[in-house]
């Protein structure tokens, strides 16, 4: 439930997103830096499922999902985000070790300007870049930009301030920076150093919206977001269509073969909003994860997806999306 005082801020579409568990509201006031600042207690806690990134190599093993608790406090100028997650062994990068990886967390911010379409969850995409606040145990925080897997770059942006604590059970990390750098849609990723996690080998949430009270509200944007959230099809039909159209020959799905021509979709629903799935089926070449061999140069030199446009009508597409959107929903990788 939203605190009543702020409910008036929210357009109705936003309320619907909140009901779907895809939106939470930041607490008001000066954003604290310390992980144990008492003001965090008053901020609403969103619980985000972090599923292993298995779609793209190098990725994670299909390990169980973890839950992270996300709290935000913003005064409209800057924002502090506090992430808490379970990880009993603190792994630092400052041990000078060569075979060891550090625990880390990142907050990825989308910039859904223009058409309000959410970027690809895996580090954005060309034309839809993301900003990343990245914190690594022992190494501190960085401000990064990306437009797709493999494109992460350090930018001129100031690194966020940070505070972190490991209490024996898990990490609590606060990242604080200017709100301008933190548009609302966020996604979390955590890396477990003990499991040698780094790069695409991580646990990752789907896009989640943080509403900042008092921040200007663009109704259109919420409308667009809501449209990307909606799905209206029959999962069972979707599953059949997926097989019938040969998709199963390239994408790994529960019950399918161990294939990797295209991204592994066993957790498609856990990471993607339906809108993204719709976009990719309708126009596979609209975005191709670079460097993974999913695209081949076309006659005009631009990269074309290996995946052809399918002879599917809109209804059939909705069925497939409905089925995919359910994958990983229960918090695990189906067989």
């Amino acid at each position, binding site marked *: 439930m939203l605190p009543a005082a702020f409910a008036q801020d929210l357009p109705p579409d936003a309320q619907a997103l909140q009901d779907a568990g895809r939106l939470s509201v930041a607490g008001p006031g000066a954003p604290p830096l310390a992980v144990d600042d008492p003001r965090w207690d008053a901020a609403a806690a969103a619980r985000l499922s972090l599923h292993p990134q298995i779609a793209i*190599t190098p990725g994670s093993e299909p390990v169980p999902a973890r839950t992270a608790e996300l709290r935000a406090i913003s005064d409209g100028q800057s924002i502090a985000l506090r992430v808490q997650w379970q990880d009993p062994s603190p792994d630092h990068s400052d041990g000078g070790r060569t075979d060891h990886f550090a625990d880390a967390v990142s907050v990825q911010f989308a910039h859904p300007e223009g058409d309000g379409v959410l970027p690809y969850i895996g580090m954005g995409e060309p034309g839809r870049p993301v900003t990343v606040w990245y914190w690594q145990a022992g190494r501190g925080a960085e401000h990064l930009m990306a437009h797709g897997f493999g494109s992460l770059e350090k930018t001129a942006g100031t690194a966020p301030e940070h505070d972190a604590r490991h209490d024996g059970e898990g990490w609590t990390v606060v990242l604080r920076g200017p709100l301008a750098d933190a548009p609302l849609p966020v996604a979390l990723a955590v890396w477990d150093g003990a499991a040698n996690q780094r790069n695409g080998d991580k646990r990752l949430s789907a896009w989640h919206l943080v509403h900042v009270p008092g921040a200007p509200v663009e109704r259109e944007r919420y409308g667009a977001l809501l449209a990307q959230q909606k799905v209206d099809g029959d999962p069972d039909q979707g599953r059949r269509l997926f097989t019938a159209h*040969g998709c199963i*020959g390239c994408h790994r799905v529960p019950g399918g*073969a*161990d294939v*990797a*021509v295209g991204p592994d979709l066993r957790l498609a629903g856990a990471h993607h909003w339906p809108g993204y799935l719709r976009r990719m089926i309708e126009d596979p070449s609209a975005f191709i994860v670079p*460097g993974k*061999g999913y695209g081949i140069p076309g006659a005009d030199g631009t990269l074309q997806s290996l995946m052809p446009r399918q002879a599917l009508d809109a209804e059939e597409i909705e069925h497939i999306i409905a089925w995919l959107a359910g994958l990983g929903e229960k918090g695990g990788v189906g067989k």
Partner: protein
Amino acid sequence: MDRREFLKGTGYCGLALMFGGPLTALAVNNPAQAAAAAARGDRAWEALYREELLGTLGDAQGFAFHCSNCQGNCAWKVYARDGVVTREEQVAGYPQIHPRIPDANPRGCNKGIIHSKEMYQGDRLLYPLKRGGERGKGQWQRITWEQAFEEIAEKVVETLDEKGLEALMVYTGTGILSQGRRAGPLRLGALLGAQRMYPASAVGDMFTGASLAYGVTNIGHSLDAWFEAKTIFLWAMNPIVTRIPDAHYLTEARYNGARIYTITPDYNPSARSATDWVPVRPGTDAYLAMSLLHVLLRDNHIDEAFVREQTDLPFLVRTDTGELLRHRDLRPRGRDNVFYAWDEAADRAVPMPGTAGHHRETLRLGDIRPALGGTFEVQGRDGETIEVTTVLERVRAEAARYPPEETREITGVHPELVERMAADLAGAERAIINIGFAMHKYVSGTMTCWAAALACALTGHAGDRGGLDTENNWSLGGLGDLSNPKPARFGSGFFTEWLNGDMEKSMRRHYPDEHLRKTAGYDSDDVRRHVEEKKALGTSYFGRPSALLLFADNMFRRNKDESHYRETMLSGLDIFVNINHRMDSTALWADYVLPAKSHYESWDIRGELGYHRYCNITVPPKGLAPVGETRSEWEICLGLARAIARAAKQRGIEQIADPDFLEQEGDMAAPVIRDLARLEEDFTLGGTLPDDEAVVRWIMENVPAIAPWTPEDGAKHGFVILNEQAGYTSPLAANRPYYSFERNVYLREPYSTESGRQQFFVDHPTFRKLGCTVPTAMGPLRPPSFPLAFYTPHTRHGIHSQWRGNQELLRLQRGEPYIWLNPNTAAERGIGEDDPVRVFNDVGEFHCKVKLVPGVPPGAVVMDHAWEPYQFRKRLGLNNAVAGVLSLVELVDDWGHLTFSPNWDGNMIAFETSVEVERSDGGVQ
């Protein structure tokens, strides 16, 4: 076909289904990406490493070499930034001497290349130190240079005044062998009449076998001559490790078709680079050498013309006394040093020209045709008949005792290998036998080396046909006025150390007399007797010093029965001053430690003792910041000279007459005057030699072998080229490698021996008593009371103890000392790889780690020598388990060319000790 091509143009979904499995673990990226990435435009980041390169190149450049006891002598560029050395790199600009001889570039090794690290390392001495507590307890007080000079000078003057000049020892060890930096302490010591030892002998680097044969201890070729040789013996030598800058001439010689025999007990790096390895058991080389002679003589591999003219092999030996036939045997009041051969042409004994006492100073035989063999009769001075035979007959008889089939039991070398060695030596137009410094670490080394010289003589290998090599030796000349302005008390090295360190104790403890008599032909009492005789001569020993100014010498590391040596030496010292660039195992025990500059920090020059013809110059990079308060040896000696003059004046002893040395004054011989009051003026040559740069300039202007090069030439290139006058027994020709004895072989100048020839017969009573008037086999001496032979060859990671504590080099080893054991020898003792062990015998013990090396012979303990004692548990170094034995032959003195001089002194015997090894559960800390 890669995956992309495979997918192209197919109904890929269906096909991919079939091939789904194998594609799972597909490469993250495909090779096409390589091309795409290579064409990338964004390479601005590459500036990162470019800037780092510029950083190492610094803002100033100088030249240097590393003048410790390494004869490599390599020119380096030294880069510095903001006064700090950033890096060094070989000059690599030496000109090629001939198109068919590989050039000498790039000279310089793993030690030189990290000297800039050593220079700023934690063991560097930065300030003058004075001990606070007891000696060796590590309680240091930092003092000023002025205080140091004043207190030291006070004590020095007191010593000279109260105990005599000989009570002061000013000794410069082998940590400095450059002509520039060495000049200061030599000059100061000579002016004061202080005693100094002969370093080559003190460290055990005399080739007494070569001295016997040639009257010269260091002879040989420049190392580029290896390239021209067709047969090379590397005997007791490991040049792949110890002659790094010249090792390429060996590997290139192999490609040039040379047969290279490495004769060593272990399969060392030079053995692996050779065509043949001769695995001789430790210390049995003399037997192998005698078998080599056996085969050469048996198969008549004799270059008769050479032997008749250039050797004493045709000289006549009396069969009754076993002595050479001398002029005095035939004529009343005849000379001692005129010898005879049997002239086949005239059928009579004739005095040989060129012998020490003969008026004809040439080897030319004229009409004489000396007989090589036979028994003859001559009439003695009293009319008696004397039966004589030739030296060669004696040599034949001796060599006949050592057929390779029989010596095999001792040496472990298969006869076929000996036969092949002999054939290759005799058959090669140019052959070289290199004798390593390890050879004379055995008592038998003298004989092995002498026999090897004989093998070269029989086969005519001398001059540009090659021959024996005991490390070539330039003769720069012209340095005397700089380093010896007045006579110094120049003493024997090995002898002084043995006496000063009371090493007799360990000899008696380790070698039972019966065993010594059996293996060496003498016992401890014989040694004692000969020591006393040599001492009585008074020519090579000046007594234990009570004041010691020690420059760049690690005597407490080097000497045998280590701890006892140190305690004995220290007990006699009223003052011990150590001048060094780093804290070594000897400086730890000093009363005063004075911090010296090291290789890059002052002007210096080195042209002598090289394997090549390049004379290197050190010119520090401009603006180089001093390291701490370090001063050069010259500056330190100047400070001392000034302070000694002041202290002497205060004490009222401005001059000391030194009647041990006389100088001519008009018609009178007058004692040399040690003019303490004028010490500063004398030291600086009336103010003309104020600093190191002036010294280098003086050397370049006064050494004939350097002409016509100027200091400016040196400063421009980092080196100059020595001219033909640098050669010692041959001229140094500009366009070919250097070989020894060309003056003798081609110009027929007599050799520096009593016989005037390559000499293979010595009838000194000791030689007769030991049965070694001609080369023979002996040894090894190591007693059976401990089962393992212990020997300590040179390491590639240090020049003796220099760089032994270097961090960069220790990281390329194991960080601490270890012995090498054959895996079976170790297993028999329950010892495994990297285990801590105790190495012990009745002399002492030390602790270290173990490295299992299959190339080490069973029954041996091998250790890279010269680890610093302070790298061992309780600071007990490896010489705690080495006994101080002497060779009786090397104690011979006052006989022809076997009279104490730089060409005749002895060695500290290092490899004749036995040990046992056991696991040390106490660890190595």
